[in-house]
């Protein structure tokens, strides 16, 4: 039988690259399909690492409470007769309803960094670096944050999961009047909501 060395090399390269590519490694680790929602556990790990504080997205569905019934709607592993299955990881009206709620409320909590009362600025106990990144968005009405501040805030929540073009689209949109006319806290909330609902953040890569 004739063997095609090109195929062998390509396969070897794919395997090798997969060990060094975070996105591929993550897909392999979770066993989940690319393009499904990452789910509660994965998002908790991501956000906790990025923000430097323990984060559970469930607590942002209803701020300050822990609605047990909603756990599975944020994506969870459930036992089946043949093993286990991920449930609520497809983007639907129900899952997006819940994840939108998480994004809006988490963003509002982060935007407390813009509060005039310094005692209220860090309810989530963010790391100093994370707090600084969010505070960079707290510009005065009519202005836009500096490019460096925007980049810092984007990287804080997204990490290096998204292509540069995604950041540029987001940053450019924030210069529109519907954003610039907002006060600092609302601007920050809306800017971060857009980031947290970005497919690059919510979906398995």
């Amino acid at each position, binding site marked *: 039988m004739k063997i095609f060395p090109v195929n062998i090399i390509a396969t070897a390269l794919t395997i090798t690259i997969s060990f060094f590519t975070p996105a591929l490694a993550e897909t392999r680790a979770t066993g989940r399909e690319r393009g499904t929602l990452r789910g509660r556990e994965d998002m908790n790990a991501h956000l906790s690492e990025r923000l430097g504080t323990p984060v559970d997205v469930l607590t942002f569905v209803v701020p300050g409470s822990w609605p047990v019934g909603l756990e599975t709607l944020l994506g969870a592993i459930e036992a089946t007769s043949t093993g286990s299955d991920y449930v609520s990881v*497809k983007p639907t009206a129900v899952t997006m309803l819940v994840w939108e709620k998480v994004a809006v409320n988490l963003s509002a909590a982060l935007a407390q960094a813009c509060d005039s009362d310094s005692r209220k600025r860090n309810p989530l106990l963010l790391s100093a670096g994370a707090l600084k990144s969010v505070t960079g968005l707290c510009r005065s009405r009519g202005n836009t944050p500096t490019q460096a501040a925007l980049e810092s805030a984007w990287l804080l929540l997204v990490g290096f999961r998204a292509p540069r073009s995604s950041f540029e689209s987001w940053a450019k949109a924030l210069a529109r009047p519907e954003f610039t006319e907002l006060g600092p806290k609302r601007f920050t909330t809306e800017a971060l*909501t857009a980031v947290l609902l970005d497919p690059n953040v919510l979906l398995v890569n």
Partner: protein
Amino acid sequence: MDTPPSRRHFLRLGLGGLVGLTCAHPLLGPAMAAGTSPHFLLQIIFTGGLDAANFLDARPLAFKAAGLWQNPFNEDPRVWRGLDGNETFVTRAADPLQRVKDSISVVNGVVMSTSFDGHEQNENIWHTCDAFGGPALAPQIGVGRGALDWVQSGNFVGKSFTNSTNSTLLDLATLRDLRTAFSKSGLIGTGRRAQMEGPGQLLARERMRALAAGQGVFSKASGAMERGLVASKVLGAALARVKGLPGDDGDGSDGTDDPANPREALKRQCAEGVAMALALFRAGVTSAVTLSLYPSLDAHDADTAREQPKTVEAVAEAIARAVEALKETSWDEHSSFLDCTTLVVGSEFSRTMRQIGTQIEETGTDHNALTNTVILAGKGLQSGRVVGASDAATLRDGAFSDISGAHGILDPGGLKAMGRPFDFGAGRVRADRPNTYSVRDHITWPSVVNTLLDAFGLPASAHRAADRFGTPAPVLKPLLA
């Protein structure tokens, strides 16, 4: 303590609806448009395999004396005569159904499968007419008739539903959480604030649309996210309208069950599930709800088999209460929920008459997909009917005298009853005993499904085939209103 939703609860639920629901919701689909009558689907599946012989397709006690049929009731069954004059034997476990006898129809002898007898496979058949899954009936009916095509509640073994992308699993606790959580914040609701999206959300949707239009890895999922966000506004508004859930007035249970009394728990779960379904229907969240309950019906062991009279009676009581709830809850000032809901109740298959190698008093029962019983009621259907029958129903010289050649091939051990041939044109059971099996000769599950599709006014092109060769599955015309 178990306190299932009371009649008072359903009365309140109905009266609440009279206030604002004599006209249709603005967010509901075409089936709910003003001036038209709504049509809901409520399915209740008691998973595990309910033995039809212990319920609505019973056998005389002489069968036990002959060592042919395990009969944990140790008494002769009673006659259940339909308004159409057709009869079946029923056990005393079916007594609770006497209260609603004229409101329901019974279909016996439904062949689920001649090849598969697993729970998951037959539950898939129940939902999709295919052992491996596929498009489920409920979302096929529910699409466009509410914010969600289908709401499932309970534990589903069969899960391969390919048309359920706008559906969700939802239990009462989750529904309460959703309603409470979102109503509090105003993110969902019918008000302007609730429907308004901030610039951040609009920007996110813009990004999703852009990615969906591209060829990237997130193209498909981004489109689904955007559609989901748009649809979530309709869903949110509908969820905010949900009223009359068990416990809303402090008269429901706390959702905890006494493990020593699973039969009471079953009745409570069923009643709460029905109350939830009616609340979802009324609010426009969905028009198709499936409750999956799991009583101890899978009686492979003798002890569980001996408990079946009590277990099946609890199932019957749960069904009777469900029908009563539909009858007694007003949809509007002219009609009850039973007038605008089609109810389907059943199990994934029946059970064998006994097991080999055990004494008749010590036997359990195994899965039998060659027959099944289903209860139908409500809109689009005739009530009080008895349709179909199973064989292994007559004895001669201590042996069954009505087994066909086809049955003998499919059940060489002689442990099962099987649906008898049916004349779809005349609408009655046939007397002949074919030597070979043909789906054309029997009431198969797709025939039941096609009857439901007709009851909902769907075209014949929506019908399911009786097998993978595309053989038509005739509608059960005696059941259509």
